[in-house]
């Protein structure tokens, strides 16, 4: 077996890089000198929690949590002696079962990776690696087609915008193609701002050529000569790899003048976003590229007719473009066979929150939330109770357990009061306060509102203030109705998608978790025991008097002799939770109570005289 050629793949997505994967790569390269082994790095595998990840091929062995000191062991035992390093193979966090081979890991088994086809498989900084996996094959075919044929293919595929809105991509292409004008632009929205989402980042870091290829095909289809990728500056690695990919694509004749001898000219530039979530909105993104405050414009006119510099402009999300080469190569029929009747293809999610397997997943449209959360995600972290799943980021909603069997597609999620969004999926457990979640999202949208239109600018602030009052014990009867009324007014009144969807987290939490709101307002209780104003910490009889909590209490509220039952002075306690955290797990003698505070009549209006 000595001669067997092996490839060691080291993940260097942002997550793994933060855990020193570049050093691991360097160490491996040094150790395998003289052996028949190629060491290369790849983009993200999507299971960042398990990083750094090292995959050995052709055996398809998946090593997780690899440390620098593990390098000699891998080389000595696996490479030289064909012995898999048992200690480092992936362990299922729920079943604790060791699963050595990549494709047997349940997290991957249930997935269908189209957009993520090359992520974790190729060296994103090496175009030859991408070419070996058929990158730019779609472009070659597209250039032989008529632009109208390309648009027809995209239309037939049923692909819908992967940025979240789900507008039929082919239709958008058709509008832009038909729009009058000599100068047109192709824009890629890589301003992935949804908190809790990193799908686009992973694609850009792992397979930048797929995005470029999609954009070039789009450029050919609508007769544009220039493309821009609007990428947020918070993604330095993605920008770097895109830049390298663009340069390599130019060298290989996929970008620039007379692409592949077709006479078609097209080039792409990267625009670094400067930190404004609203720039994910298409008109805001365009005004931002033009050098302005990223404030959305009224539509119509739509970008397809009047976009960047007033010219017809096609704007799609990273993942939308990444789908295009596949549609061209495999045909629209092949693509349309995947997914549901109205939602074709796959959905990519960043599955995060209180979930056992956090990570990036790709599934065919139509699988249920339950399958994603339990079969792929491995269920709730630490065996807690599932409470809600949030999709669509700040524009989406929180769905309770009763919706777990909802199929994941554009229309079903909207019907349930949430939305597909660009792919964030955050799982919440029993310890998550849903009022606080609503407050969190409103805090986000309030900070990210551009400030142009009244409903969004002041409305998000007004809702946030009411929500803050509720979680901090100043809620008033009537607040829930007021929130709903505001929410409806803001939804219909706001200028752009940010404001129109900002109330969704509030509306869905009220719709599905109204009891939690009521508990805060009427019972002085936070059922999730999260809101400080409503909770108190108590030491119960199982206390062994170790003194850990006493020593860690920042306000000296805990008293008690060594080895005796301790006591928390409720007057002094600031509910910081330090005692709860330090109490040894096997002792577990700190309890959190809620709803015990007396209801004090609140002075509604104070008239001060004199």
């Amino acid at each position, binding site marked *: 077996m000595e001669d067997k050629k092996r490839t060691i793949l080291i993940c260097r997505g942002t997550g793994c890089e933060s855990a020193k994967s570049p050093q691991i790569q360097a160490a491996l390269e040094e150790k395998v000198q003289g052996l028949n082994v190629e060491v290369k790095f790849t983009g993200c595998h999507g299971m960042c929690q398990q990083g750094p990840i090292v995959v050995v091929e052709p055996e398809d062995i998946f090593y997780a949590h690899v440390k620098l000191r593990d390098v000699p062991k891998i080389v000595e035992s696996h490479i030289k002696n064909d012995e898999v390093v048992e200690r480092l193979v992936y362990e299922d966090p729920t079943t604790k079962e060791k699963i050595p081979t990549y494709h047997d890991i349940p997290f991957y088994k249930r997935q269908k990776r189209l957009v993520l086809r090359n992520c974790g498989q190729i060296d994103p900084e090496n175009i030859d690696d991408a070419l070996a996996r058929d990158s730019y094959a779609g472009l070659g075919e597209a250039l032989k087609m008529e632009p109208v044929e390309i648009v027809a293919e995209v239309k037939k595929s049923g692909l819908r915008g992967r940025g979240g809105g789900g507008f039929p991509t082919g239709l958008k292409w058709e509008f832009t193609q038909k729009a009058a004008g000599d100068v047109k632009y192709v824009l890629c929205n890589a301003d992935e701002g949804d908190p809790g989402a990193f799908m686009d980042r992973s694609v850009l870091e792992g397979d930048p050529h797929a995005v470029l290829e999609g954009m070039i095909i789009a450029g050919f289809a609508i007769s544009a000569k220039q493309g821009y990728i609007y990428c947020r500056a918070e993604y330095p690695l993605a920008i770097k790899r895109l830049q390298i990919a663009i340069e390599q694509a130019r060298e290989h004749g996929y970008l620039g003048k007379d692409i592949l001898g077709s006479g078609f000219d097209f080039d792409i530039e990267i625009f670094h976003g400067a930190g404004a979530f609203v720039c994910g909105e298409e008109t805001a993104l365009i005004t931002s590229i033009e050098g302005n405050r990223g404030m959305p414009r*009224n539509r119509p006119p739509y970008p397809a007719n009047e976009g960047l510099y007033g010219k017809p402009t096609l704007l799609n999300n990273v993942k939308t473009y990444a789908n295009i080469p596949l549609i061209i190569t495999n045909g629209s029929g092949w693509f349309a066979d995947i997914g549901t009747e109205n939602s074709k293809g796959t959905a990519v999610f960043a599955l995060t929150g209180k979930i056992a397997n956090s990570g990036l997943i790709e599934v065919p449209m139509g699988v249920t939330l339950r399958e994603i959360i339990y079969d792929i995600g491995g269920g709730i972290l630490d065996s807690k109770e599932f409470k809600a799943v949030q999709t669509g980021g700040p524009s989406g909603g929180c769905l309770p357990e009763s919706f777990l069997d909802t199929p994941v597609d554009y229309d079903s999620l909207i019907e349930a009061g949430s939305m597909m969004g660009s792919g964030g999926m955050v799982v919440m457990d029993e310890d998550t306060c849903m009022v606080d979640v609503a407050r969190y999202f409103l805090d986000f949208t309030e900070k990210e509102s551009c*400030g142009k*239109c009244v*409903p969004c600018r002041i409305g*998000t602030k007004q809702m946030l203030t009411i929500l803050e009052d509720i979680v901090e014990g100043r809620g008033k009867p009537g607040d829930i109705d007021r929130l709903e009324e505001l929410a409806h007014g*803001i939804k*219909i*009144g706001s*200028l752009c998608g940010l404001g129109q969807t900002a109330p969704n987290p509030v509306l869905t939490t009220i719709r599905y978790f109204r009891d939690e709101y009521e508990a805060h307002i009427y019972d002085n209780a936070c059922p999730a025991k999260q809101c400080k104003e409503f909770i108190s910490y108590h030491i119960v009889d199982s206390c062994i008097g170790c003194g850990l909590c006493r020593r860690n209490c920042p306000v000296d509220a805990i008293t008690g002799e060594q080895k005796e039952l301790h006591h928390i002075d409720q007057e002094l306690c600031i509910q910081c939770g330090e005692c709860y955290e330090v109490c040894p797990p096997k002792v577990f003698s700190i309890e959190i109570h809620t709803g015990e505070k007396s209801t004090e009549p609140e002075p509604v209006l104070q008239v001060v005289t004199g």
Partner: protein
Amino acid sequence: MDQFTFTIDGQTITAEDGMSIMDAALANDIYIPYLCHHPDLEPVGACRLCGVEVDGRPMVMSCMTPAKEGTDVRTNSPAIYQARKVAMELLIMDHDMDCLACEAADDCDLLKVSAYLGIQPEQLEGLRPLGRQLPIDDSNPYFQFDPNKCILCGICVRTCNEIVGLGALGYINRGIETVVGTFGDKGFVDSICESCGECVVRCPVGSLAPKKPQLAAREISTICAYCGVGCGIHFGVRGDEIVSTRADRESPANRGSLCVKGRYGFNFINHPDRLTTPLIKKDGQFVESSWEEAITLVADKLSNYHGEEFAALTSAKCTNEDNYVVQKFTRAVMGTNTIDHCARL
């Protein structure tokens, strides 16, 4: 220009090509509430109050949407009322509602729209007051800027850009923190602001307001007396005093614009230094005299000079008629062509 018809609330109205729904409505005396619209400026659709229903499509911004032949526009529907009401309630809760002490109280668009929507105080119960305590900029001698009353309609910012072409004002920060301000958020006088007051004139609320009350009893039109542009001005008069100015929109010279001198620099007229009676110098001192005495004196004296001995300086500040009389006097009475003025200075 081509004309066409469409209906607003069932009433058939005539519009011209290029008119927005709002333009057409206003031209036909149909009121649609708005705060950020101004006829001189490009529309932005920010206040969201002018939304109408077009052929059943809700919330079409009437300020930005061209009127189209044959369309059915509704200025009111439950959804539109709801959106407007919420927007208005939000604005009120974010606004310093000290109306009695406000310069704009007699002409405040916020109050006007609020009245149109019938907003009642008890309706606001349960909403949290968001008013901020931002410092008032009173650096300019003629007007002040109170950001706590600002509704961010952007009319001032657009005016400074589109009308004045200066860009002294812009938006600062983002979201609820957004304020109108100058470069570096300094006082108006420490910026490139030229104090022309075009923004003050257009502010729909009391945020940018003149420091002195300006309500006039009547208006009289004349021409500015400063530079050669010859701007048309309507002076507002109360009793015997000029209390306000308004640019003449019909004047081809200024088309509704004025500069700082023209708009505000009229206070010299009532200055206590004004000469109010003829003065005759006696023993090196000026002594007040009657018109008769002074006229007689000058007539007598001038009879002693003729031709080259006399010279007159007339004035580029005076009227054509003044100048004609002075030159005629010089030429016909004093017998010389030595008359000049500061044309060259």
